[in-house]
């Protein structure tokens, strides 16, 4: 059962397979996108095709699907058939987790593997939860942004629970890398959906404080700025009214460095009815040092104009935003 190529005994020489006639792939007389399969691979798949066509859900079929998966973990037909066999044999799904663990290392971004894992855990239920969340953390420790791992984690939490430590876990990860957007996304997921936390509105104030701290530490980090806006999703008036929000914009602008996101947030506030005090006007003016092109008296227009220049990659977008501003009163 070794996956070491040199040691592999051809299926044609294994006694337990002697009754099976391998089924070659029907590529036709003039194949295209034709892969130069190694002999081992070709043979494994020829035998798989035979078993699959015969719909043989036996222990040897289970072994064969393992070999086929190791040869090509992307073959969703093999994975699907393996599930049918596992069910037919009422197999030990904890062993299945071990198998998945074995191949997770070199296949951390494989859709089929993650989907299969979900299928297994679904059947094992709450008992499997704690270990699953731990193993998932290990995968994330090696690739902190693995999209499949994060989606899987979210699925486990929603299907089986385990929310209690999740916010702490997010905090821990953010301490290591405050720029990790996947972690910020997870944080949002937790505060909006955890049955222990009371929902977005209940969490909002403390989260705003948390986010403002992160912003002040790294104002050029896009993640907390978007997270901050997210805290006020569908409640834009509250965003405009929250002094913490306008105040962080002012603070960052006054440092005169890494102020682009602060300007953008201020622009969004203005577009939604924010009435700026003179402080805000002065802070924006201080960022613009040209005499030849004075700033517009309308603060929102002035900000768009500045952004066209300091975020010039997006000049087209800022011109469009300016064109969509309501005409000044």
């Amino acid at each position, binding site marked *: 059962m070794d996956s070491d190529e040199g040691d592999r005994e051809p299926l044609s020489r294994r006694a337990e397979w002697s009754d099976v006639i391998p089924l070659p*792939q*029907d*590529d*036709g007389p*003039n194949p*295209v*996108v*034709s*892969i*130069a*399969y*190694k002999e081992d*691979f070709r043979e494994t798949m020829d035998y798989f*095709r035979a078993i*699959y066509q015969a719909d043989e859900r036996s222990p040897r079929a289970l072994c064969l699907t393992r070999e086929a998966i190791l040869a*090509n*973990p*992307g*073959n*969703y*037909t093999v994975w*699907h058939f393996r*599930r049918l066999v596992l069910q037919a044999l009422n197999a030990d799904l904890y062993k299945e987790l071990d198998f998945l663990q074995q191949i997770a290392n070199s296949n951390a971004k494989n859709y089929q593997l*993650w*989907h299969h894992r*979900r*299928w297994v855990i679904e059947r094992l239920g709450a008992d499997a939860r704690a270990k699953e969340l731990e193993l998932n953390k290990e995968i994330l420790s090696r690739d*902190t*942004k693995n*999209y499949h791992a994060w*989606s899987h984690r*979210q699925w486990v939490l*929603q299907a089986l629970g385990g929310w209690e430590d999740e916010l702490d876990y997010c905090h821990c990860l953010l301490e*290591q*890398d*405050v*720029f*990790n*957007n*996947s972690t910020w*996304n997870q944080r*949002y*997921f937790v505060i909006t*959906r955890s049955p222990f936390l009371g929902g977005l509105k209940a969490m909002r104030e403390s989260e705003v404080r948390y986010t403002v701290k992160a912003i002040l530490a790294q104002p050029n*980090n*896009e993640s907390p700025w*978007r*997270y901050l*806006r*997210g805290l006020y*999703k569908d409640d834009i008036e509250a965003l405009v009214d929250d002094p913490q929000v306008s105040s962080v914009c002012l603070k960052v602008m006054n440092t005169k460095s890494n102020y682009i996101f602060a300007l953008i947030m201020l622009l969004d506030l203005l577009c939604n009815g924010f009435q700026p005090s003179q402080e805000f006007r002065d802070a924006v003016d201080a960022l613009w040092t040209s005499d030849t092109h004075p700033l517009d008296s309308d603060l929102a227009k002035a900000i768009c104009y500045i952004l066209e220049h300091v975020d010039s*990659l*997006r*000049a*087209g*977008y800022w*011109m*469009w935003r300016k*064109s*969509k501003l309501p005409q000044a009163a």
Partner: protein
Amino acid sequence: MESFGSLTLTQRDQIMVEQQVFSILKTFYEMPPSSQSVMMELQREDHVEYLTKGLKHLGPNFCVLDANRPWICYWILHSIALMDEFLDPELEDNIIDFLSRCQDPDGGYGGGPGQMPHLATTYAAVNSLVTLGGDKALSSINREKLYTFLRRRKEPSGAFRMHDGGEIDVRACYTAISVASLLNILDDDLVQGLGDYILSCQTYEGGIAGEPGSEAHGGYTFCGLATMILINEVDRLDLSSLIDWVVFRQGVEGGFQGRTNKLVDGCYSFWQGGVFALLKRVHSTKVEQSVLLPGEEDSGAESLQTTTSSDEGEEDLNEDSSQAVSHFDRRHARVEPLFNSLALQQYIILCAQEPGGGLRDKPGKSRDHYHTCYCLSGLSVCQHSWSADEDSPPLPNAVLGPYSNLLEPINPLYNVVLDRYQEAHEFFTRS
């Protein structure tokens, strides 16, 4: 105020890529103009050679794509079509034959002969056949059976499952709807509940995730937006938030990243760049219509007169601008792209092209057919990003490098070359 050592992993990874990219750009800018001209060329011949070779033979390492062979067909065929090249008719016939062997008797296409049908490989097979064009290719698709396959993949939530017992996500939704629309078999049963599902996948960032709760991601954003347009529910999305997210996915390198604070990757030239091409088809997000004055066409100057257009309630402006447009030659209707088209073209041409043929994720990564397809698709989007409609060929200054770099325009909803789409549309409308 921090020392180099206290940078986070995200920051370190980003700096490394920026250094590589800037070093390429620096080398480029220090070259004499004659060398620069060569560097700015799309190496068509090399790419075509790389692609046609792959259409015939692939090495043993490709066994990891043994369940994705219709994809390999599509990536190659579409790339070749973008460059307006043609294949041997015999090779075309062989491809049609191969894809027929991937077609399941009960509908849909699998990753290879004898494999279960799968929505993604179905999408790839159909797009391949549409790209080949002609009655033989188009009539080889069993539409009736395919429809039943799509119905079987439909979930109570409104979403779709990739295959029997497979995963559910926004990609599955897009591949199903794209195929249904292209083949003119889209109906209420396929559409019902789908808008709700995709809406639930738009995140607080503005982009769209693969599943509800997951992170906003370029690939899924393209899929989600295209699907919503195809089912005519696009205005249910928070479009201004989506646009705001996607414009910030373009980085200093010129290329696009897939997610906030991640690294640039050539394939997002299409997944993210293509979002802008899609948005052009969405009436409510129409950008400034720039109209060229007579006599300006030859100078190659960009937009001059601008009139703002379509916000709700600003019907007067609409009327004015449409009158203004009809006053001049409609063939020169232009729009301003919301993203930086020239910066993206520069990334694709200078950083994503591999010497010897093929395109790649970023410098330091190897070429592959997937990245070749999506870098070129993104390049086409860029070159046509000023065109309001496809009747007008792009002005020279829309195309970075020699005008011979110009690729065929696509229909961004399906990512097939526009001519081929039109042929297929006619074919499946009358049959």
